[in-house]
């Protein structure tokens, strides 16, 4: 239950689902991480393990996909065009 509520709130913050228990958010600039961290601290359930890792887009793209494929959300976030056509 706590996980469901937490998941709903981080999605509203702009985190996208990558795989189970892994969510990713694109920050416009590095200084925004302070506000994001504070928001997550307020939302974090009392029990459970929540970790925040910062990567550049370049570092993220260098990751190696062993099985499965990138989620739709990842493809959207890593899209290099500012203007998306839907």
């Amino acid at each position, binding site marked *: 239950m706590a996980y469901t509520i937490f998941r709903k709130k981080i*999605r*509203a913050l*702009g985190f996208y689902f990558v795989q189970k228990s892994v969510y990713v958010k694109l920050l416009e600039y590095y200084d925004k991480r302070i506000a994001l961290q504070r928001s997550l601290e307020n939302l974090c359930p009392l029990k459970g393990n929540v970790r925040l890792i910062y990567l550049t887009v370049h570092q993220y793209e260098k990751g190696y996909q062993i099985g499965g494929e990138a989620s739709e959300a990842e493809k959207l976030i890593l899209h290099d065009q*500012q203007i*998306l*056509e839907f």
Partner: protein
Amino acid sequence: MRTIFVENTQRIAIKEGLLSFFDGDQERALALCDVGALVIANHSTTLSVAACHALDAHDVLCLICDPKHQPSLMMLNLYKYHRLTTRLKKQMLWSVERKQTAAKTLLFYKILHQQKHLEHCAIDGFEEMDSILMRMEEEKSFQQLEAQAARLYFKRLFGPYFIRFEDTFINHALNYTYMCLSAVIAQVVVAKGLHPSLGILHDSSFNNFNLIYDLIEVYRPLADFIVYQSTINHTALTKACKKELLSIFDTYVMFDGRKTSLKRSVEFFVDSFIQHMESGTRMHVPEVCFGG
């Protein structure tokens, strides 16, 4: 912040807190904090009321195109400012002297940016624009000088046969980009509690956006620059051309020596404008950058 150009979506709604785009079985979703502007070009797209409220809550600019594919409708929340009545009363009492100085400043910087644009594109006209700027500082009737500068500027930029408001690709592209720019300014102006109809330079009773048309003057050369760049690769207002024009939402300008996004600069500019009109402090104007 992305700009979403909607052409193949049947329905736009909010699902699980995300802005979701439905096209048959296909569904794509984006967080509202990642969307800067939404341009709806498809007339059969449905936009839910919940989505309208969510777009407003997250300050997402929403533009809807008319049957001619020109942006013509924008969503504006006129009652967002917390002290709206106080602000409107002050706006109605702006002194004529401050309106004059603000109008002169706006037109001065418009002509200055036009001059910089011509210089950036290596087009002749620097000296003529310079003489207009010098006359502007000395003469009281500056509006005629604006017209002279515009005539010179557009002829040099788009050719000697260019006539504004003719039915040509360049004019359609200019209208498209100016409308996008107007929407950014209108959103900030109403968010700060000002009424868009009460202008300082433009005063037409048939124009509901007099103030927007005043404040956009400083930014117009930026829109002209984007249109001028698009004419290199395009001869008609195609989808690819429109996507180039929509890049105006992601441009940067200089404000007080710092590089800021277009929307952020408009916020600083409108704040400075309000302070000038209400207290007489010096108005800070953005500096348009050409070519990055």
